[in-house]
């Protein structure tokens, strides 16, 4: 029943490597990760690839398939022509460890530098009250599975190693926006932080991050643009700054509706 397909998989380590060719059987309903596992089980027991859930929930299996950053477990083989060569390479923006596994510690380091949720002092556990409409936007951002595909595609760091120091990337912008829009977060400097310490200004709104996000989070429209606009507003209008807490709810409307 299966078809015989041509795969090219990058094999190597930080010192270098090459694309290796494999002729592999592919069965109905299979995804790219199934094929990588078949190569592992039958030909290359040491082929390094990360995965956990095999259902698009954990964000472990990120790689580039025919040059596009994707989750291997959610890439159906039926989306390719039977005669098409499928090329799998590690995500490009981060250093290679081995084969398809990369060192993604950049993302964890940036998360460590991001000020955490600050609980409202006056409320005891169990006393939090929030309306569903007021948390929906933050919940959208909390759908993030930390696959780092958005980080990988973003040209600010994909093509410019030197920007890594100053730029936290879209994954962390949505985290900043999430906390900014959290009805009970006690901090009020999230946008300023994003601008000053996360390098929000380096983003020129190409929307590539939104396009690759497997969770369909509207990273650019709902987080980045919203944050950028507010930073500008507040710079020029001290009253806006004063009224922040009071008007929080209005500010949670998306900056653009699409």
């Amino acid at each position, binding site marked *: 029943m299966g078809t015989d397909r041509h795969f090219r998989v990058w094999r190597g380590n930080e010192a270098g490597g090459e694309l290796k060719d494999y002729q592999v059987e592919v069965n109905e309903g299979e995804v790219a990760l199934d094929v990588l596992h078949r190569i592992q089980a039958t030909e290359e027991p040491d082929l390094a690839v990360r995965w956990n859930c095999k259902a698009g929930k954990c964000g472990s299996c990120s790689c580039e398939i025919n040059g596009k950053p994707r989750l291997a477990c959610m890439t159906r083989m039926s989306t390719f022509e039977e005669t098409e060569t499928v090329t799998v390479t590690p995500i490009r923006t981060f250093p290679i460890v081995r084969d398809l596994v990369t060192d993604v510690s950049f993302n964890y380091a940036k998360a460590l530098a991001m000020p955490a*949720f600050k609980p409202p002092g006056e409320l005891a556990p169990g006393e939090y009250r929030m309306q569903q409409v007021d948390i929906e936007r933050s919940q959208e951002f*909390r759908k993030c599975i930390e696959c780092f595909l958005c980080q990988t595609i973003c040209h600010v760091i994909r093509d410019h190693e030197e920007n890594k120091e100053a730029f936290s990337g879209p994954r962390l912008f949505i985290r900043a926006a999430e906390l900014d829009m959290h009805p009970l977060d006690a901090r009020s400097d999230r946008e300023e932080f994003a601008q000053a310490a996360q390098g929000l200004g380096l983003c020129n709104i190409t929307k590539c991050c939104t396009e690759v996000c497997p969770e369909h989070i509207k990273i650019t429209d709902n987080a980045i643009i919203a944050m950028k606009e507010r930073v500008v507003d507040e710079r020029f209008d001290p009253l806006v700054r004063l009224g922040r807490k009071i008007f929080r709810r209005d500010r949670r409307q998306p900056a653009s509706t699409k």
Partner: protein
Amino acid sequence: MTNIERHTYDVVVIGAGGAGLRAAIEARLAGKKTAIISKSLFGKAHTVMAEGGAAAAMGNVNSKDNANVHFCDTMRGGKFLNNFRMAELHAQESPARIWELETYGALFDRTKDGKISQRNFGGHEYPRLAHVGDRTGLELIRTLQQKIVSLQQEDNEEFGDYEARLRVFDECTITEVFLDGGKVSGCFGYIRESGEFVVFEAPAIVLATGGVGKSYKVTSNSWEYTGDGHALALRAGATLINMEFLQFHPTGMVWPPSVKGILVTESVRGDGGVLRNSEDKRFMFDYVPDVFRQQYAETEEEADRWYDDQENNRRPPELLPRDEVARAINAEIKAGRGTASGGVYLDVSTRMPAEVIKRKLPSMYHQFKELADVDITKQPMEVGPTCHYIMGGVEVDPDTTAACVPGLFAAGEVSGGMHGSNRLGGNSLSDLLVFGKRAGEYASAHASATKRVTVADSAVAAAAETALAPLERGESCENPYRLQQELQQVMGDLVGLIRTRTELEGSLTRLAGLKERIAKVGVTGGRRYNPGWHLALDLRNMLVVSEATARAALEREESRGGHTRDDFPAMRPEWRCINLVCTLADQSIGLTRKPVPAMRPELLRLFKRAELTKYLTEEELAEFDAIAGQGSEN
């Protein structure tokens, strides 16, 4: 030996799922220097996959709910084999553990009055599961992960070092726990990325390694679930209980073959989904067992009314505990009323408008659309049983989570007792929080009371030799992937949902054969990020845990919860009083019988006598009558 990394900690937590992270937070809050270790990247543990919710009797949706009701539901679900004290603590403490998550930044779905919303789930009398759509596990693990970051930030302010008191060692697999004079002294592992070894010296170790499902081919579990914690505990001299009880979740995907086993959350049924066979019959009405007869609807009309009016109607039988639903589906398929791909239909499309489905079950919508080309707002899903959860695990003290080896603690799926013979949906996420916290607390106390421990070089050398053996044997020996497939075959075919004596005996023979071959497993490649090598080392854990399950399953001659014997189809009250305890000696599993702790009278009195008669022996009932007082109507 000189290049082996060594670290010293007060508390080492093995596992970075919900239980491990909650334990680590508690240990750090107690001022202990704490390490968190995980096989995967930080934030990818199994907990991330949980969908439906976390059970806690907060009473936000139905104010009649309280800890006593939750306790009773948990005991019923586990068919009264649960460690009652764990079930009690769990019911009492889970609301506080959930509320605490809000102070860490969690955003659960809300009720109209702004509280945490709660949803229905199988076996829970009231809407009880705190949730975020169908991605609750992600919210839970991310929240705990972010709390850990916040503690690291505090430490950075105080000591100028984020990792001063709390450090995460991700992609690091522990293969050995060390003892010194019968007490825990540390552990040994390898770093996946480099293949180098690492030693942790610590007086207290918390096992939070999750489950064993990877020993089955059709499973909702990932590669991590190789029973490492169970096996580490056994090798360290600790005991396991209830290993015969495995939960086969009734609804795993069945098509396409490559995703067979991936979970379809129970929320689908909790929110109104119904099960039908190939003859379009809503068959669950035929499978309500006597013990549950009074709580479940007898007609489709009553069942449907229940979703809107729970006061005056009984629950739909689709919401029976998981073991009942899984067996029913299995029976329908065996009777020839299954679908072509070997499942039954689970349908929401005719029950709710498309927008509601997409809002309430976004990831299920996504999952079926992208993996099976099925639009669940228009078509039914096809589902069948999948290996999901192990009730059995390390035997622990209910209050402290301590195993019988001093310094060893266990929490989460790796521990045993809490869920008895069957876990209710949603009771795991809350279990992780309640007992994770307790494990952190008591491990810290143990560390404070213990003098410095050391790990002998000879022990480290032996562990390193064992770990390197498969690489040294090389390719000409047994292939780890093939051995894993064979093991999965044995367990799936012979120690599955429905069991018999002959099959179980057969499984033990086959496992003995595999044991010899696994001792000869060999791999190619180097030490750096070599999955073949990693699997080779996991195999011995999978094997020993599988043997524990098979032996206990053969011994227990009755059917109860997650253990169904075709040759002993009834539940037998005399077996309710017995826990089967597994130990390891000479690389083989030994079994002993131990009484299940008896419930305190005031807890026993929460149940009606009529219900207890289905579970308790004559003597136990006589005792119950004595404590309940003469002529009690209860």
